């Protein structure tokens, strides 16, 4: 992808950059020499996680074991959420964005973080109190199971598919960059390992893969930040002043006048070209914020803890670690400006990073800790993708086996052994399709797919959850059809927006001019649920409304939770 395309793709592309693993696809990919240190370290990570999967497999016998892992603490779950959320791409993408343009990278980082308090305040405890395995348990609690579960399963599969394609393609690209191995190897390794984790270890193995990865990523990034701070005498003022001096000198060398060069150097300390029109900015911000509260693989993590109290603690810790991680990436971006800008081993002629646009933090790792540490950080980046895809696969598999098979087809009377078998078959099918999709989309622009996943989650799942939890008048038809309209609005507006209409279809002007649909599609979802529920005169609507009181009581108090949660 060219740099100019990035600019047209704007916010959305960068959202994909920062959340999807497709970090590496910005800029030309040059396959690197085979990096055996990185491969060995990664093999070590795989060995540990397979060992854990083996241990988890012996304890994964019931459907509940498979979907929830038999229960972990809020602290562990918080780490696992951070492991699920902090992708390789935020690590590589945001640091490189700061290395190039300075401050702007922090704006995405903040957007990714502010969704968490919303999840905490509005849905976390009610979700835990009402649900068992999937968010559809909660969304369909007092409604007719068929329509609402079907909506939730379709929405889960859509969100997961777009997210997963971006991760698979990103993994392939990243492996070419970091390990020097071919694309297909990477796709197969990722698809195969995620199948093994989920198939045998279920949620227990997935949680531990995410926890280990989060600890590795946080430790690695902390070590790098210590290296940077040591270099600048532990003074932020020195760090920023030297970064400005470096950018000024680069501008002077490119032939700018001294005053223009000074202004260009200073520009890294404030917001730059990232946000052009305020509508896109706000819309993008809302997609991030509300999408987090509708991502099925994140919501599913609430059922791994025993009660609402631990669910709240999970988010507390997730927010601490994710916030800490983004603060580290900010320092690393500026550290990279100071430490690698003038080293010809890292930066080629014209200021381009060697190996691709997203390699800033990798070069910084080499500058600080040598080959061994570079290998470690590369292995962490790849492990990160595995942790994310395992969580995605598990949530898609449970949408099929728990929501569609057990609840809709078998009307809630499924044989648990058969349900478990269905989830495992689904996992295998998902693993194979993920590999095929990874191959099919290798050369495509997948940057918009993660942002589309966030927009779909914000416009479909989030309104359905909020309305079913908090509004008595919500009915089966309102939730199922209103949610579907929210999804369609997000999807349709994304197709009509510049990232697809112009960049993919090649039309001259986008029909929908903003880069994110959320500011319009989220209200559309809410309005549709409200309107359809208000007009709903069916006999079922009366039952739906009458069920609110007991749903409300359970969501607020947790009475009855332990009857349904067989831990």
């Amino acid at each position, binding site marked *: 992808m060219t740099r100019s395309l990035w600019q047209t793709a704007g916010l959305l592309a960068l959202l994909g950059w920062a959340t999807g693993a497709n970090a590496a696809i910005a800029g030309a990919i040059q396959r690197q020499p085979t990096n055996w240190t990185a491969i060995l370290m990664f093999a070590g990570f795989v060995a540990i996680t397979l060992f854990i999967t083996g241990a988890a497999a012996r304890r994964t016998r019931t459907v509940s074991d498979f979907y929830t892992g038999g229960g972990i603490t809020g602290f562990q779950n918080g780490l696992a959420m951070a492991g699920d959320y902090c992708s390789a791409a935020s690590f590589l993408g945001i640091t490189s964005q700061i290395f190039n343009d300075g401050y702007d990278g922090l704006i995405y980082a903040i957007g990714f973080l*502010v969704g968490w*308090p919303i999840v905490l305040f509005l849905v976390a405890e009610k979700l835990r109190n009402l649900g068992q395995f999937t968010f559809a348990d909660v969304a369909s609690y007092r409604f007719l199971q068929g329509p609402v579960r079907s909506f939730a399963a379709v929405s889960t599969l859509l969100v997961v598919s777009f997210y997963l394609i971006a991760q698979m393609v990103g993994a392939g690209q990243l492996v070419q960059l970091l390990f020097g191995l071919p694309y297909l190897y990477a796709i197969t390794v990722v698809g195969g390992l995620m199948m093994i984790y989920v198939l045998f270890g279920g949620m227990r193995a997935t949680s531990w893969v995410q926890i280990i990865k989060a600890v590795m990523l946080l430790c690695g990034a902390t070590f790098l930040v210590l290296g940077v701070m040591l270099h600048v005498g532990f003074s932020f*003022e020195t760090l920023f002043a030297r970064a400005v001096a470096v950018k000024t000198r680069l501008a002077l060398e490119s032939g700018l006048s001294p005053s223009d060069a000074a202004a260009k150097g200073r520009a890294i*300390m404030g917001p730059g070209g990232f*946000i052009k029109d305020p509508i896109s900015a706000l819309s993008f*911000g809302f997609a991030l*914020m509300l999408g987090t509260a509708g991502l099925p693989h994140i919501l599913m993590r609430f059922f791994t803890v025993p009660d609402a109290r631990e669910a709240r603690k999970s988010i*507390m810790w997730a927010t601490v670690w994710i916030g800490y991680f983004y*603060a580290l990436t900010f320092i690393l971006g500026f550290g990279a400006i100071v430490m690698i800008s003038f080293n010809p081993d890292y930066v080629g002629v014209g200021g381009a990073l060697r190996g691709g646009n997203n390699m800033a933090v990798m070069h910084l790792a080499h500058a600080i800790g040598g080959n061994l540490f570079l290998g470690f950080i590369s292995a962490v980046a790849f492990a990160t993708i595995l942790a994310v895809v395992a969580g995605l696969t598990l949530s898609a598999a449970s949408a099929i086996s728990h929501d569609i098979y057990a609840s809709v087809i078998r009307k809630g009377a499924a044989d648990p052994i058969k349900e478990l078998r269905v989830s495992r078959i689904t996992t295998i099918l998902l693993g194979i399709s993920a590999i095929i999709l990874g191959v099919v989309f290798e050369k495509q622009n997948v940057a918009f797919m993660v942002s589309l996943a966030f927009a779909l989650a914000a416009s479909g799942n989030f309104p359905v959850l909020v309305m079913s939890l908090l509004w008595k008048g919500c009915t089966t038809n309102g939730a199922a059809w209103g949610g579907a309209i929210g999804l369609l609005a997000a999807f349709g507006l994304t197709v009509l927006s510049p990232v697809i209409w112009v960049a993919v279809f090649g039309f001259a002007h986008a029909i929908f001019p903003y880069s994110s649909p959320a500011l319009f599609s989220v209200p559309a979802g809410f309005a549709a649920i409200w309107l359809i529920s208000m007009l709903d005169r069916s006999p079922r609507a009366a039952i739906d409304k009458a069920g609110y009181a007991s749903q409300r009581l359970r969501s607020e*108090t947790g009475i009855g939770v332990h009857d349904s949660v067989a831990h």
Partner: protein
Amino acid sequence: MRIASDPRYAALVRDRQRFSWTLTAITVLVYSGFISLVAFDKPLMAQPIGGGTISLAVILGAAMLLGTVAICAVYVRRANGEYDARLAELLASTRA
């Protein structure tokens, strides 16, 4: 069910709901304010603070990260403390 008609239950739900919506509103407003500053007043954001290199944007960005963690801490502290204690008391007295 007896709990549902207990005035302490109604009070608990009302208090917790008011608290969570207040914090939600604060989060949304502060974040929208931050994005609007970024969108509408870039020169102000780039202004150095205290005569050094560090700009207002960096300070506000760091405050956003810290503030997000802090507002979660405020909610969890109260919900896991005061509200859970009131709920436990309510459950104990209605079961007894």
